[in-house]
């Protein structure tokens, strides 16, 4: 017996609070955004302060194709979530697979850029301040792409095993929030590194 409820007028009929997964993910995104902010500030602060070459203008070119891949993976993730809410699990799996593919292509783009910078242009994290800030900022973002891909791949495995059902839509939404955040951060990184920084 609940003593309080019997001694008081009846409570409001609806008592609805936000979902904890969503709130937790927003809080995590806020923390991650603060981390990225510090790295972005360091990048902006050190633009043009390198004591030796190579300079960003000489070695960087905007990775337009890979950027389009990553940004469109946000769209495919969104479509995947919509399919799952509609109960179409196979279609969800297909869109999810496309999302993972696009994310992996982006990672390949970063890897090939780094390979070229290291072996052709001789730029490493120790070369100068540009190298220091470039590899740490882009690397931090790449690390988040990897984490996102690990999460998506886990869901993909569960989908193949037939464990994902319509009622998991809310959880997938939470994961997809993280993926959208990773994409949004890339817009920031792209602007700072390839537009302002050059």
């Amino acid at each position: 017996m609940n003593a309080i409820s019997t001694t008081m007028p009846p409570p409001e009929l609806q008592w609805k609070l936000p979902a904890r997964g969503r709130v937790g993910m927003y809080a995590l995104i806020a923390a991650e955004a603060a981390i990225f902010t510090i790295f972005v500030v360091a990048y902006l602060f050190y633009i043009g302060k390198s004591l030796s070459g190579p300079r960003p203008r000489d070695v960087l070119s905007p990775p337009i194709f890979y950027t389009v891949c990553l940004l469109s993976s946000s769209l495919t993730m969104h479509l995947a979530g919509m399919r799952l809410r509609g109960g179409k699990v196979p279609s969800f799996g297909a869109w999810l697979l496309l999302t993972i593919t696009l994310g992996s292509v982006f990672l390949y783009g970063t890897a090939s850029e780094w390979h070229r910078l290291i072996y052709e242009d001789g730029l490493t994290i120790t070369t100068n301040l540009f190298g220091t800030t470039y590899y740490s900022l882009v690397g931090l973002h790449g690390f988040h792409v990897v984490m996102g891909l690990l999460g998506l791949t886990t869901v993909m495995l569960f989908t193949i095993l037939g464990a994902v059902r319509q009622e998991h839509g809310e959880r997938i939404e939470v994961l997809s929030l993280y993926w959208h955040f990773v994409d949004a951060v890339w817009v920031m990184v792209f602007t700072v590194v390839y537009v302002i920084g050059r």
Partner: protein
Amino acid sequence: MSTESMAWPSTTAESRPFIDQLHEWATTVDHKRLGILYIVYALVFLVIGGIEATVIRIQLIRPHNNFVSPQVFNRMFTMHGTTMIFFVVMPVLFGFANYLIPLMIGARDMAFPRLNAFSFWMTAFGGLLLYFSLVGANGLYGAGNAPDVGWFAYAPLTSQTFSLGHSTDFWTLALLVSGFGSIGTAINIVATILCLRCPGMTLAKMPLFAWLNLVMAGLVILAVSPLTAAQIMLLLDRYLGAHFFDTQAGGSAVIWMHFFWIFGHPEVYVLVLPAFAFASEIIPVFSRKPIFGYPVMVGATVAIGFISMSVWAHHMFTVGMGATVNTFFVISTMAIAVPTGIKIFNWLATMWGGKIEFKTPMLFCIAFLFQFLVAGLTGVMMSAAPFDWQLGNSYFVVAHFHYVIVGGILFTLFAAFYYWFPKMSGKMYSERLGKLHFWLFLIGFHLTFDFMHIPGLLGMPRRIYTYEPGRGWDTWNLIVTVGVFFQAAGILVFLGNLIWSYYRGETAGDDPWDAWTLEWSTNSPPPAYNFASIPEVKSRRPLWDLKHTDDPDWKYE
């Protein structure tokens, strides 16, 4: 109406083998057990950090003292600062938040119990990592021991060139790891408060404790993350040869200061907001009045949260940032005194006309009010950049921030320990020992930190190993060190009281203070599921409504 009807009779069997109990504690995801683990862990580090403080003060008791070597002295003040901030105050506050928030908002656990356990063990691992430096930091160079770069570890002291061995690595890794734990707990607190409140508890009906911890958790999310980023940069510098803080390659030592204090100053409010939370729960109960100006208290808290993000560079006036930047930080620092002042007046107004009971928790809260006022006043003094140029890095600064952390935060923490000890243990503490603790610690505190301002004004810099006689510092340093022994005695009485009362104390009952928030409606100690049935509330003081059905609060709110 009985309040016990909400709880279930306690049926815990205490006769299980020790190894089973240990296994239960090590694998627990229960917010109450994790809260107690946090608190006990912090108390262990409180003793360690206190011993380090005592070593520092014995070294400075007279001029030309040789109690420890200069190297050991540097390690002592570094470890003292790092330990007290990251492994005493933060864990103990998280412990209370963990234990109390679900109980106060009528929930059965935190939002993410396993994340909660993960966060605790990360924090615990961070502390062990810091102290493992004592044996592990020598490394291949055979140099270094415990970290000795100061708790804010300015560049270039932390570079490979000036910090051989691994002492700085242990420092930075310990903070990185415990930072992950702190962020995890903060996310958990935010999600718990926003998503798990019992029916009827709107944001405007939450206990102030929950409000203040919500803002605190938000600050942890926004302030500890920059520290994490800065530690990653420092690790990149030390291990991969990056140049973030390397002035030889065009890097900047000043940007480390900015990054550290962007964390460091909100951190002060991370520590003090839960202290405000304790005071906001304890002062009304022992004044027998509801809190004065609840909406203003909430507004002031949120204001403090915002303003605290824009005051960090007042730690850097002596760096020479230029007149415009200095002026901005002078004004923002002075501005933050306004919401803080509002809070002090609200607590005073709560006490005004109340039927004050001078129990131990209330004594600590009253001392907190006066001491925090003084701490705030010296803070406003130093917010003026020219005054800070004179006294920056002097013992005046040390006295100021110990007035905040000891006089403000630690005093309310003691109040919280005594106030909630009956709930957590089911036993009542000894009021005699509690009062003895209070007076010993009060005398010790004022001997130490009142008189510490004076050698600071006379020009004594912080972190000096020793000093020349005849500068007018000798007597003051002697008095300061004598105060330490009073404080140490007070701490011993406190710990003795906790242990003695746990085993021999009288049974406390579910609601020994005739209090008004939900945690007092369940058993002491609460069962694993907290509430037999989830309560529903109609006002900010649900237990008042329950006890006074003829005149409930919800009619007036």
